[in-house]
């Protein structure tokens, strides 16, 4: 699996609404390390059933500019597949802005607010903690 992840051009990160299991966490870890090692590799989240974006997907070099796919109708696999293919195309700088009944393709930037807010809150928490240590 590690070899397969490192040899591919892009990595699709399927994210469901439920907790991740250890196998999924292991795969995500490998994907993130692969993106750190190769800046051309994009981490493309595929969000299922209203799942939240995991913060690590912003760890690739493309960051907010990489595509993000939201599956709106899981009963339409053909429509979902079309959206994913659209997201994977590299001929346009931003293969985004497509919305059908089955799926929507946007950029990771469109969903980054919650991730940034969560990071800001954590930094504030660390800062408060540091202030406590100073006293």
């Amino acid at each position, binding site marked *: 699996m590690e070899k397969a992840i490192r040899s591919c051009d892009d990595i699709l990160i399927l994210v469901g609404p439920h*907790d*991740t299991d250890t196998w999924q*966490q*292991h795969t*995500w*870890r*490998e994907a*993130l*390390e692969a993106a*750190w090692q190769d800046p051309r590799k994009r981490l493309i989240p595929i969000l299922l059933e209203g799942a939240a974006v*995991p*913060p*690590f997907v*912003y*760890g690739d070099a493309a960051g907010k500019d990489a595509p993000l796919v939201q599956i709106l109708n899981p009963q339409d696999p053909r429509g979902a597949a079309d959206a994913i293919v659209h997201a994977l195309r590299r001929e346009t700088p931003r293969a985004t802005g497509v919305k059908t009944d089955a799926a929507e393709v946007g950029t990771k930037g469109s969903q980054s607010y919650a*991730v*940034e807010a*969560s*990071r800001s809150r*954590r*930094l504030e*928490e*660390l*800062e408060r*903690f*540091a202030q*406590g*240590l*100073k*006293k």
Partner: protein
Amino acid sequence: MAARGVREHFGQGKLAVVPSKAVFINCPYDLEFEPTFDAILFATVCCGFIPRSALESGNTAEARMNRILDGIFSSKYSIHDLSRCRGEGSEQLARFNMPLELGMAMARRFMAAHKSEQHDWLLLVPEGHVYLKFVSDLAGFDPMRYDGRTESVVPKVMSWLATRPDAVQTPTPKEVLSALPAFQVERARLRHEWGDNIPWADLVLAAIEIFQRVL
């Protein structure tokens, strides 16, 4: 506020830490391992987590085992390095504190009432380490291998922390490694001030301040 001259204890009172944001670091504390230890501690802070350790209470009257248990049981995450489980000295004896403490962390995982509270641990081993020959029960737990350099251990620690359920967005390992020397300078200053007994709170505080200043 603490009375003048009374030092607040890390992990208690105003310095209490929410377990889901705490990482217990179970690694050797000797000089040879210090660069790796510092890299793990600093990477943990840069990922938005508070590092905890058996060193933190500064209260030598409390048994070491109690301090370790307290640290593990008040942290949702822990990092264990088995580097020192190898023959040393003329008798070729290995230190087994690290596997013992890993066992405590594993036990804590099974004691959680809810899956979201389950303890999660990262096992680090150097390349070529023969840990499976003496702790064969660890087969299948997939430890992270690194080559002993900070450049190798930082991405391993960061990729693990960045993909935990309580993670926040992190900098890249490259950014963290570029800021690490500033932390090492601060650690040297603290050593000059405190000798080998640097208060854990001061060390964590230094890491947080450098993280906020540089990254």
